[in-house]
């Protein structure tokens, strides 16, 4: 196994990622300036470093080795989730964090990578023109097990980020349209039934999403403040660290979930377009890479990973302006959060790894 030598390296993807990371660190610095957590920027930079190492490591490693062991990896990654459900301490209502010394980690992020690997492994060996019921059942299980475990933590937002894997598998695995229809029906009914299982704060988020004006002091306050932050940025923004909404703390959780509102306020529509373009570049470039993949496993791996990535990006951006409900999904690469940035970079490493091994003979 050779490192780098003669192998393709996708610089477009790489530089888009590095650009996003740089913007991310600037925004975290701005969003945390003046607060007691001044070391958050350093900490984030450190996690970015770890993530970049992981990315390079993944690039160097043949993804096919990982595919081979994907089932084991998957099982192992479920263990901490099970542990959390039993022993986890709640942080902000949910048991999604594992605390090691000074660090907190969301194991579900790793599970997501493992699930993507296992799904790819599934489709590596699924070459029928139509998705067989047995394969569909497996796909369903792969996604649903961690989904339910995370959902029970209960972290609805994080659980939802598993669903793109299911959709990718169904779509690219050629699920017959009748199945789609049946699934849609189950989903609608399940949503109705699921309402009764939602926690109060989750129900409130949905109600607030539908009628944000009803609760201007609580949940609606977040949305209102983030819309004000975004809208008041105008074309060019108020300038780095000059966003009144974020600097005066009107904007809630601004260094994590609402980091994009900080960008929109301080760098305006120009900044938004730039970051939007970078994300589009990452997603579209990855889709292009998927079409180059040497095998079904590689293609599905890229598709699964990038679908999770793109899903989070779109949901998070929509969240800022009330297009999507406030679900607590961070913005990949920009939001503060070690596990998010490290696993996202690891995923990007896997994408690069697939691209590097596009020709059968290397």
């Amino acid at each position, binding site marked *: 196994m050779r490192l780098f030598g003669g192998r393709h390296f996708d610089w477009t993807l790489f530089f888009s990622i590095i650009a996003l990371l740089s913007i991310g660190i600037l925004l975290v610095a701005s969003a945390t300036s003046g607060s007691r957590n001044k070391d958050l920027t350093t900490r984030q930079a450190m996690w970015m470093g770890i993530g970049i190492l992981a990315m390079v490591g993944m690039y160097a490693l043949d993804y096919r080795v990982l595919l081979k062991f994907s089932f084991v990896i998957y099982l192992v990654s479920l263990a901490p989730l099970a542990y959390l459900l039993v022993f986890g301490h709640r942080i902000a209502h949910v048991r999604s964090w594992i605390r090691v010394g000074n660090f907190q980690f969301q194991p579900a992020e790793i599970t997501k990578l493992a699930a993507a690997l296992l799904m790819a492994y599934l489709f590596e060996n699924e070459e029928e023109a139509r998705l067989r019921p047995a394969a569909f059942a497996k796909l369903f299980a792969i996604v649903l097990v961690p989904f339910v475990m995370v959902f029970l933590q209960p972290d609805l937002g994080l659980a939802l980020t598993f669903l793109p894997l299911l959709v990718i598998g169904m779509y690219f695995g050629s699920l017959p349209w009748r199945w789609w229809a049946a699934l849609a029906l189950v989903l609608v009914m399940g949503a109705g039934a699921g309402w009764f299982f939602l926690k109060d704060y989750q129900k409130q988020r949905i109600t607030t999403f539908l009628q944000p004006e009803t609760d201007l002091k609580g949940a609606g306050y977040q949305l209102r403040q983030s819309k*004000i932050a*975004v809208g008041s940025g105008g074309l060019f923004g108020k300038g780095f660290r000059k966003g*009144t909404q974020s600097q*005066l703390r009107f904007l809630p959780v601004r260094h994590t979930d609402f980091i994009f509102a900080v960008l929109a306020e301080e760098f305006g529509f120009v900044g938004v377009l730039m970051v939007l373009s970078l994300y589009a570049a990452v997603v*579209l470039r990855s889709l292009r890479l998927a*079409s180059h993949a040497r*095998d079904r496993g590689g293609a599905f791996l890229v598709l699964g990973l990038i679908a999770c990535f*793109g899903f989070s990006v*779109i949901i998070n951006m929509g969240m800022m302006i009330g297009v999507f409900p406030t679900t607590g999904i961070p913005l990949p690469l920009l939001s503060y959060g070690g596990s998010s940035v490290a696993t996202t970079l690891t995923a990007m490493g896997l994408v690069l790894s697939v691209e590097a091994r596009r020709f059968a003979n290397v």
Partner: protein
Amino acid sequence: MKAVFEDRTGFQWRLEISFIVVSIAFGLMATAYWYIQIARGDYYFQLSENNRLRSVAVTAARGVIRDRNGVILAENRPAFSLYLYRRETKNLAASIDAAIETLGLAREDVERRVARYRTYFDFVPIDLADNLTVGEVATVESRSVDHPEFAVGVGQQRFYTHGSFAAQALGYLSEATTVQVAAAPDRYRPGDPIGQRGIESAYQDLLAGRAGERRIIVDSFGHETAEESHSDPIPGRDLTLSIDARLQSVAEDYFKDRVGSVVAIDPKTGEVLAILSAPSYDPNLFSRRMTAAEWSQLVENPAKPLQNRAIQNVYSPGSAIKAFMAEAGLAGGVVSPDTKVYCSGSATFYGRTFHCWRKEGHGSVDLHGAVRGSCDVYFYTLGQKMGLARIASAMQAFGFGELTGIDLPNEKKGLVPTEEWSLKSRHVRWYPSETISVAIGQGPVLVSALQLAHAMAGLVEGGRFPRPHLFLSAEDTQSGNRYRYVNQSEQRLSIEPAVLERVKDALWAAVNEPGGTAYLSRVPGLDLCGKTGSVQVVGQKDTKKSHLLPYEKRDHAWFVGFAPKDDPKIVICVFIEHGEHGASAAAPLARDLAAAYLGVAIPERPGERPPGAAAQTGQP
């Protein structure tokens, strides 16, 4: 390893679709951000400015009000309020209970205040109680460790140093009404104190100054992080009134248990030296946001303490009008000083018998004697000779039936009846016999105490009527500039000196000659002149003596006069509701005021009776 992935057509097709879907998704997202940031950018920018900026009014110190000698009548004192910061409290209900218990507050009042803040953000402190005493402030401060949620705020409160002293003339401060806020939204916010009634209202703009404004930058907790801009308040101007507190207190003392009004003016300048309306009220009640009970007590009091009787209540002048009838009769040539009328105690006009107040009659009287003894028959005769039209025009020339133009709000203009008025307002023809009543100030002729004083000032000044006013000067405390009132007077009549002397002599005689109705109020060297009057409250000719009637049916008492006779320095009008007799109830106060103003000592006299016992002589 499995074979290389070969069959790609369906897969590639799907990829192309997803490529388009992703592009559309990002495109839509960009459009959504364009809409929020560009299309609605100004709107949200405004909202973000509203978020971060707070406008804090900096209250301007209200001008101090002083009397003509510098005695402070109204000033500002620090007032302490108790504020509750909801963010600092763990248990709102417990905090409220603690406040109620510590300061002994009324629970319903506190709960009403708390309810008002329900829609405000937590960082807006609740104004729980106002006007804490120094002791209460100390109590709150001493418990600040256990109760960090409470804080004491210092504001300014209007303080009327003499309490109910000249209360109706001074007015009071209370929260601006919605109408007042709507009229000047750039100057007042709801809750701002604003002058209501009296001088406080008339000179609101001078006194209030202009509030300054601090525009501060706050964070989401409402904590001030910086000041963006500020404009200093412009303090209100200090006002010096023409009122003489010494004179005013002489009047105030006299009216402790009486109802009525007093006006004393300088006939040359129109400066109001004293103005009183009784019963009065304590304007300080308004400064400390009176309770609903206190308010209804004031408003529902049948004696209407809020009303300024001196300018707002009009009554028949009674015999006090004879002073002006005398001038009109002489000036118009209707009577000469030597014209004599025989008074037998009654006389018949238009087939009706009219009585003189003095049943036994005055005998043969000329003008001098008629004014001195207040002979009704003489003035009936004069009235009949003049006729209503000439009486009305003479009375109007003296300013009756129109506003004097005093610088106080809500002055009433009273009524001088004419034949047109009778048809238009009463829808009946004027009865000639009514003219006879009007000639002695009875019937539908209505005047205020101020109008009588104003008319008397015009008379003694030979027809030059000063415009009455309380404003003397205003001082800009910052620049030291002083703005003075420019006296305004109008030569409405030209009274011949000979006529004026005759009338003044007669008015002097009414006080200083035996047989004068106010003879008991004479003081050597004071030269008080004037005319008494009493007004029947019940219908025509009740045979009972007034003092035998229940209070509310007793006659009203008037005295209008001036002193000294030559070059008068002060004109005084006293009105006492149900005071029965001008001579016994009203004249003594006029005497005291004139004596106090001119520095003349009043000798003790054994014959001096308490006012209530005056009825025995039965003088009007």
